[in-house]
């Protein structure tokens, strides 16, 4: 079974968990779960939405349990990420800034931004996935985008460029 949306699951997991390893573990877990439920899957008309929902819940649970244990998810992929980003496009590390700014956002905003701006989901889809109203999604999204803009401008003004 090759899922065309496994990259989407992984990206969502990575957005929430930040750590690459954690995100890979989470994605693997979700894929295994989906695999074992393969036969029941025909009942769901939208497997992708279901998988995204599973990923979201799994990652939030993971974050919660880590917080309860007073542990922080460790990730060592800052540097790697920057290097690979730089290899992909010849721009300064301002793209890395965007990533770091997004890491600081609250989970809800992270998810909305990820689903809309990266994966281009419709508002209705996001609303259903997150269990919010479409209006709430709009508000969250607007807030998230404005925060990113604000922080980006701040970094810009501090110089370097």
């Amino acid at each position, binding site marked *: *079974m090759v899922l065309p949306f*496994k*990259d989407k*699951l*992984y*990206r969502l997991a*990575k957005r929430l968990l930040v750590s690459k390893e954690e995100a*890979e573990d989470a*994605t*693997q877990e979700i*894929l*295994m779960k989906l*695999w*074992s439920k393969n036969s029941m899957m025909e009942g769901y008309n939208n497997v992708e939405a279901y998988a995204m929902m599973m990923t979201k819940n799994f990652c939030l649970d993971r974050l919660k349990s880590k917080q309860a244990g007073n542990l922080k998810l460790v990730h060592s992929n800052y540097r790697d990420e920057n290097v690979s*980003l730089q290899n*992909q*496009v010849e*721009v300064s590390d*301002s*793209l890395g*800034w*965007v*990533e770091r700014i997004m890491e600081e956002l609250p989970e809800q905003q992270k998810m909305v931004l*990820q689903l*809309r*701006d*990266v*994966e*281009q989901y*419709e508002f209705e889809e996001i609303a259903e996935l997150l269990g919010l109203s479409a209006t709430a*999604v*709009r*508000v969250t*999204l*607007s807030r998230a*985008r*404005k925060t*990113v*803009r604000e922080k*980006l*401008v701040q970094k*810009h003004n501090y110089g370097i460029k």
Partner: protein
Amino acid sequence: MELNNIEKLLERYFDATATVAEEEMLREYFTKEEVPLHLKKYAPMFQYFSIAKEEKFTRQVPLKPRKKSYMKWISVAAVGILIFGIYFGRSYQEQREAEYAYQETKKALSLLAANLGKGTEKVAYLREFEETKQKIYNKN
């Protein structure tokens, strides 16, 4: 694309009222065209989003839980057969032991019977003797 248009779109973008198609236009604008200075600060955002979409899940997932469940059922069946076998094997053993004991008893009994036969033969002699003795008594 017209600068005016882009600015309007940006405004709608930040109010989250733009459609997916309009946002796609913005993304294209900021990744392809030369951006005027006052809009340059937005470029990293859109560029980042395009790049973030390229990230792939590269780990190979060992999807073989099917096989595993087969193994489980095989072991369950094996245990079942084993228990079955032990149970019936034991009853078979018991049956054989019983048969053996029966044969032994039979042998012992036949031995006894043979000896008893010998005894009765001798007793038959004795009776003959008794009869003749009686005859002699009667004559006297």
